[in-house]
């Protein structure tokens, strides 16, 4: 499932495009999403997470919440990279 979600995240980011995310490169599993070497600013991160939440909901046909308390922690945030976000999303889907 995680691989499928990684692809979904990459695709979602592509659809949002440069305008909404001010992204210049394609994402991949290892892309750091925010922080020092992150691909996104804080608004871009919010936009991406919400779009991914909705994309997952459409794909798996069940509401999922990707809100998280550790959101902005450099070391523990589930949004650190595309891979950790996918892992977190998978755990939320299975837990719901």
């Amino acid at each position, binding site marked *: 499932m995680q691989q499928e979600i990684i692809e979904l995240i990459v695709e979602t980011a592509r659809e949002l495009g440069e305008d909404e995310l001010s992204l210049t490169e394609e994402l991949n599993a290892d892309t750091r999403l925010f922080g020092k070497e992150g691909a996104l600013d804080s*608004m871009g991160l919010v*936009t991406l997470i*919400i779009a991914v*939440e*909705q994309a997952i*909901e459409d794909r798996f046909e069940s*509401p999922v*919440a990707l*809100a998280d308390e550790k959101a902005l922690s450099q070391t523990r945030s589930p949004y650190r990279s595309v891979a950790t976000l996918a892992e977190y999303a998978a755990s939320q889907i299975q837990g719901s």
Partner: protein
Amino acid sequence: MSEPVTVITGTRKGIGRHLAEYYCDRGHIVFGCSRGEPGWERDNYNHFVADVSDEGQVKSIFSTIRREHGRLDNLLNNAGIASMNHSLLTPVNTVRKIMDTNVIGSFLFCREAAKLMKKNKYGRIVNFSTVAVPLKLEGEAAYVASKSAVEGLTNVLSREFAGFGITVNTIGPVPIDTDLIRAVPKDKIESLVERQSIKRLGQMDDVVNVIDFFLRAESEFVTGQSLYLGGV
């Protein structure tokens, strides 16, 4: 533009019901909710039996709206409960219920609504407070605390959502004749009305007028405000 899509919470009775009927009659597609069945109908009205403080139920309301309409224009966070009691005699469970409905409920609806509104870079959110906040009404400590929190939420969200074209404002009604105030002793209501500049009970139309103003597209430059009725 097609018909506005409007979410109103607490539509079974009282102010929420009036607002739902009013906006349906003006061509809005209205999605309402309350814990009970409404017992009234309108074309364009869709009801969800849901508790505003239940995250799962709230999320599924917004999933449905997203699936059916793909957008949302307006949110009226009307659902609310009160309790008139001296703080020394108020059970903690009452405080929790008030916080859950008034604060958590408003928070969840603002959060989920903004996700949907953000897509069109347009949205209008109106939260519900009360004149009991500025009047520091004795006997309503928990209620006033919860509505103060709602005003705080409005203030911060107005800033967080400004970049998405979403305004967030609060209306603070004076006492209006609904079930909410029926349990409050008459003399208490009278002394409250005496503290207003204009000394009468509020009417549904007074509320509608303010909400119409907040919802207008032209009100795009009005956000983060708490507007009290009756000159409080």
